[in-house]
């Protein structure tokens, strides 16, 4: 029982961190319609930023600024925001699929730099030399994990409430207006480019915050943490949970991460011994099937966006899909 609680806390911590990232993406895609294919770059920028700013001095790579933790975490998120600002200025005017591949490229390049620029990031062996904050107080075991989970949960709730308020504010309505009909928004004297950039940077800061928390939890980050798989995982969480709905985003994060990990657990427990060596591949097939099935069953997500009357007139689907069967 103790074991179960300990695992549940651990699982929930990672799921909550991922949920924060999904919320950030939801602001970008769900509310603004920006196809960010490079989630992992901003996640990674936050992670590396936090460790570099808050770590102890290391002989072989940058770091050792030893900032107190809240400043390091905020700094990491700010690094992600800065990256988003530069990327946003360059790419946000692109059409959806082009934007997706351009940002995807940014993420691959980011991973590449982290892998090769040893003096900056420690290279492929990863970035170490970071002490988890308040270890003296909580020790290393379950107590620490519980305390850290509470901290992550508080941030998750904070981000959630912030976004809920934001999307209900006039600015939030403006975001959706631009998503639905850019020309109409422009004709009302709004600047879509600027609004998009603000949304993109804000979302990326949130994703960067998640990255910072993630790196803190493991006290370690390496290029293996910033591979495109993470982008895919976070997107799958949003799409399955329900884009445009913050509750859906959080729900999707827990659901997909739960499915991802429990499929492995179930296979290790129930698959026959002879099949154990193949469970890796089987697990991927299972995960793929779950995602496809979810999309066949509820393509709008489990908790879809609740459209208000003023938006009902505008069909959201691209013009062709309805007639293509």
């Amino acid at each position, binding site marked *: 029982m103790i074991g*179960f609680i300990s695992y549940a806390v*651990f699982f929930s911590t990672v799921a909550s961190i991922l949920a924060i990232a999904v919320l950030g993406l939801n602001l970008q895609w769900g509310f603004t319609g920006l196809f960010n294919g490079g989630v992992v770059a901003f996640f990674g920028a936050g992670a590396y930023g936090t460790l570099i700013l808050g770590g102890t001095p290391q002989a072989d790579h940058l770091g050792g600024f030893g900032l107190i933790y809240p400043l390091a975490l905020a700094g990491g998120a700010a690094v992600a925001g800065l990256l988003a600002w530069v990327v946003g200025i360059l790419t946000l005017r692109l059409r959806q699929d082009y934007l997706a591949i351009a940002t995807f490229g940014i993420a691959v390049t980011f991973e590449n730099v982290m892998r090769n620029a040893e003096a900056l990031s*420690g290279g492929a*062996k*990863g970035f170490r030399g970071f002490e988890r904050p308040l270890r003296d107080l909580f020790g290393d075991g379950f107590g620490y994990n519980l305390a850290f989970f509470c901290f992550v949960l508080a941030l998750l709730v904070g981000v959630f409430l912030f976004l809920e308020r934001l999307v209900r504010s006039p600015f939030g309505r403006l975001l959706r207006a631009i998503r639905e009909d850019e020309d109409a928004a422009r004709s009302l004297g709004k600047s879509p480019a600027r609004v998009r950039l603000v949304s993109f940077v804000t979302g990326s800061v949130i994703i960067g915050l998640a990255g910072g928390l993630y790196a803190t939890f493991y006290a*370690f980050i390496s290029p*293996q943490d910033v591979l495109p798989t993470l982008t895919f995982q976070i997107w799958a969480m949003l799409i399955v949970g329900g884009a445009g709905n913050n509750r859906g985003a959080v729900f999707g994060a827990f659901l997909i991460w739960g499915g991802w*990990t429990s499929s492995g657990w179930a296979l290790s427990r129930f698959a026959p011994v002879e099949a154990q*060596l193949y469970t890796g591949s089987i697990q991927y097939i299972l995960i793929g099937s779950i995602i496809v099935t979810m999309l066949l069953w509820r393509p709008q997500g489990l908790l879809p966006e609740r459209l208000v009357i003023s938006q009902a007139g505008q069909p959201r689907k691209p013009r062709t899909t309805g007639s293509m069967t």
Partner: protein
Amino acid sequence: MTALNIKRGGRIALAVALATTALTGAAAAQDCTTKIGAVLPTSVDWGKPIAETAQFVVDQVNEAGGVQGCKIEMVLRDTQVDPKVGVDAAKALVDLDGVQVLLGAVSSGVSMPILTSVTVPAGVAQFSCCSSSGAFTTLAEEGKTKGLWFRTFATSNVQALVGAKVAKDQGYKSVAVLYKNDDWGQDIGKLVAQHLEAQGITVTATVAINDAQPSYRAEVTDAIAGQPEAIYLALYPTEGISVVREWLSLGGSQNMILANSLKSDEFRDAVGLQYLGSAHGTDTSSPRVESADAFVARYKERFGSEPNGPGLSNSYDATMIALLAMEAAGKDAKGSEVAAAVARVTDPAGTPVTADAAGFTAARDVLAGGGTVLYQGATGNVRFDENGDVSAPAVIWSFTESGTQEDSYISLEEVDALAGAGN
């Protein structure tokens, strides 16, 4: 069902039961099970054989009666080479299955977060076959592994030193270094280049080979431009095959120096033995005792091929040492007790035991009498230093029709001498 059928059914059951008892021998006494965890990348081409080897060890030990009279069950989880997935799997094994011993992971980027956030906080002993990053040594030096971390992967420096020695012995004047662009490859690539230059050999290029690229033509062109007399390859078979085939077809030199990751039948077959005549490999090695062949012999029996492939012997040793240490630590030992018992099974002054079921049985008797043993593993007389690292003697090998042969043996003292000369 008729009476006759019942009778026949009963007879078959009896026969099966008898046969089972005869086959498993001591195993019949096992009525308890001890779980150990394994977190390995089974969905990756080079990861699956590593897991297969670990399972092979567990089977052998069970055949020899298990650990402390209990059958060992290895619960295997895939890491997908994704740190979060690996860490979660490890945490589930520790918390839900209550394992005290964890095997894994392969990549340092996965092993490290498992160590810092799962095994060390929970006091679980972690044995990795293949994580090579120097960061583990630093972490251990800082006392942050609490003595729970072990790896059977000899530091890359041994192989780098021997690689440079091969180049010198063969009289190569210039060498191009191609390395896998991960933590292991970056490390060994840099070391080899250093040692080569220390020997007065020109390094014409050091080229990083990234994973999962559709073509390595450009990298090979880059390496061939300096027209080196030989190439040093620190690659895995998948990229290795692609790179070497390109290299040869562009007229590159057949003088090759290979890291142990290319000691692989797949590599030999796909490149072709006719092109590998002047290829020399390096590896860490078994000690010069007769019984050291036990591992190879048993492996061939089971898999029908030599244990050639990245990390196989390391995985074998990691698993065997973990199980021996569990035996030494006593029934229901905690992870920290198992970790503390590692010294008792890798004691240079202990009774030598071989790397197979017979060796395990022998070790059990010695350990029960309060003695210590020296495990003579597949990668050598494995000896851990205070940071959980191993040092080992080395060999130079080459490919043959049926597998590989050993060309020369370099003892631990000679390796140390090379290291001294290199510095």
